[in-house]
């Protein structure tokens, strides 16, 4: 009677080649974005250069929604250093800030050296003058680093342009056959790297707080199991494969423990695994669905989804006391909470009038702001600088990634042409 489980090949690919599965479409920015000109950087080496650094920086700043980069066609000159800057030209164009730079061929372990300068056009003053360097293969990293510096200088907030995302992509092959992929990419969707591919579901990608390891759930054996995997080496370890659910791994802020959902004792419950000993401690005990644990930034409590009151709502479990408190009361479906880095607010999936959206709730005041208006929004993941929330949504029948700023004013989409994409997980710094 039982169908034979057909195990399909699971590939762990660690190729150096990368492709871009996602494209970026900015759908909404702030009303009066800051005008900045990012002049193409001068390349003083031999042969062509593989990346347009200034283009990447401009795209980063544009994607934040807070900046409007000047089109290159409108530039009256292409300065590369301070002596070549004529402030009046930029002032005439309404530009508030100006970024220029040049790339020179270095030697040794830094064959690429970049010098860049940021100017305040109105005050006619230089705000930044920096040099950095690296390998040819690190040109995109260098560009994102420059974006981070500029963003910090102009907004006072640390930029998150150098961070990564994990996501799941899926495609129906035929009948009941699907292809599932776990992919890592830059936060702008570029340089996608296939981490795992399977004909069985892959779900719940999660980052270790050091950004060097990830965890996920893979059904590749026919049953769900939680794995942890080291990104650089590709080495992985199966942490759990109990009977029933092995779900929703969440690293503690100190990296020493992992919260997870197991139903080995008959019911979906939240457990904490000490990663050194792999010893499990069960923290919920209720005849209801308890799932989707997420650690508060101080590591002292865990928020989770439970339908113990009849409908899914968010609760908070304090580790020291075992005290459980309900957090959400508005709406009949509030699930998969993620705290902001300051621990003052949580972001979650909120259903109101039948529609699933991403909402943020101030924990002290209890007030809710719905951030999104798209269709079937889920899986919110917060940028480490708390500027943006990336989430999964549906557009024209396809699963895509989207992002919204925490104030709801900036929005962009990261669709894939060929596959459904979902479950974004934003890396730590």
């Amino acid at each position, binding site marked *: *009677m*039982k*169908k034979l489980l057909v195990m399909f090949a699971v590939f762990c690919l660690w190729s150096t080649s990368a492709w871009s599965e996602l494209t970026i479409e900015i759908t909404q920015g702030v009303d009066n974005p800051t005008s900045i000109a990012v002049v193409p950087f001068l390349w003083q080496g031999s042969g062509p250069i593989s990346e347009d650094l200034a283009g990447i920086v401009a795209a980063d700043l544009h994607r934040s929604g807070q900046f409007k980069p000047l089109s290159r066609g409108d530039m009256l000159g292409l300065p590369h250093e301070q002596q070549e800057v004529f402030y009046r030209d930029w002032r005439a164009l309404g530009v508030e800030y100006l970024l220029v730079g040049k790339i020179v061929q270095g030697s040794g372990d830094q064959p690429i050296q970049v010098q860049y300068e940021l100017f305040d056009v109105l005050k006619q003053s230089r705000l930044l003058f920096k040099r950095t360097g690296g390998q040819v293969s690190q040109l995109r990293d260098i560009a994102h680093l420059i974006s981070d510096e500029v963003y910090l200088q102009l907004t006072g907030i640390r930029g998150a342009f150098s961070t990564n995302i994990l996501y799941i992509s*899926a495609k*129906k092959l035929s009948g*009941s056959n*699907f292809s*599932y992929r776990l992919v890592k990419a830059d936060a702008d969707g570029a340089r996608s790297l296939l981490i795992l591919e399977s004909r069985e*579901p892959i*779900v*719940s990608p999660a980052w270790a707080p050091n950004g060097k390891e990830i965890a996920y759930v893979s*059904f590749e054996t*026919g*049953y*769900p199991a939680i794995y942890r995997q080291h990104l650089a080496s590709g080495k992985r370890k199966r942490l759990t494969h109990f009977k*029933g*659910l092995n*779900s*929703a791994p969440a690293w503690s802020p100190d990296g020493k423990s992992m919260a997870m*959902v197991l*139903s080995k004792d008959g019911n*979906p419950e939240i457990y904490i695994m000490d990663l050194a000993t792999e010893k499990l401690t069960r923290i919920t005990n209720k005849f209801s*669905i308890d*799932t*989707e644990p997420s650690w508060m930034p101080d590591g002292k409590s865990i928020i989770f*989804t439970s*339908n113990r009151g009849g*409908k*899914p709502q968010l609760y908070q479990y304090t580790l020291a006391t075992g005290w459980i408190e309900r957090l959400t009361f508005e709406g009949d*479906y509030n*699930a*998969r909470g993620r705290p902001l880095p300051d621990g003052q607010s949580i972001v979650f*999936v909120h*259903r109101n009038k039948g529609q*699933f959206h991403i909402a943020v709730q101030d924990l002290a005041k209890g007030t809710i702001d719905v951030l999104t208006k798209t*269709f*079937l929004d*889920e*899986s919110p993941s917060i940028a480490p600088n708390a500027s943006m929330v990336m989430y999964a949504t*549906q557009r024209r*029948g396809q699963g895509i990634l989207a992002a919204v700023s925490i104030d709801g004013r900036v929005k962009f989409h990261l669709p894939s042409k060929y596959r459904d994409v*979902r*479950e974004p997980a934003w890396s730590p710094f």
Partner: protein
Amino acid sequence: MVAFLKSTNRRETGGIILMNMDPKSLSKLLTVTIAAVMIAACSSTDTDDSASATSDAAQQQQEGAVSTASDSGGDVSSEAMGGRETMAEPLKTVFYFNFDQSALLPDTRAALDAQAQRLRDTTGIVRLEGHADERGTREYNLALGERRAKAVANYLAIQGVDRARIETISYGEEKPVALGHSEQSWSLNRRVELK
């Protein structure tokens, strides 16, 4: 049986309710219509000799269902009738649920009674795969799918199927059968499949 349903679906264009239904909906409709039937029958992969008891009432209900097609479908119905006569009606192997619910629906109970009767006379593992529709969060839906599979498992166990033979797994919303984004697809995806 699957081939029969597909063929009916493809060629039956004038039927009142069978029109524009995919094989799953059609299958569901037919099974609902004959919900009272206790036909122990073969599934698409197994045959079982004890599977031929058919009540008269059920037989008539079935005739009624098929005659709807017959009125408008010409030779299709005779093909359908022929198909039904030469092979016993398969037992229902997919059971549907309401949104965010794992309670068994009345017709599911009837269908499971018939399954239990067959399973009591067989051996081997019974695999129950629980699924959810795409609405709501993925990890919650994994838990919900498990709830559904366990609800079916518990019912079968109460009906005398050895619990040790029953294996449950949840795929949550990861393996939809219908890819649309409306209730029509969602209702087909909120399911437990018996394998």
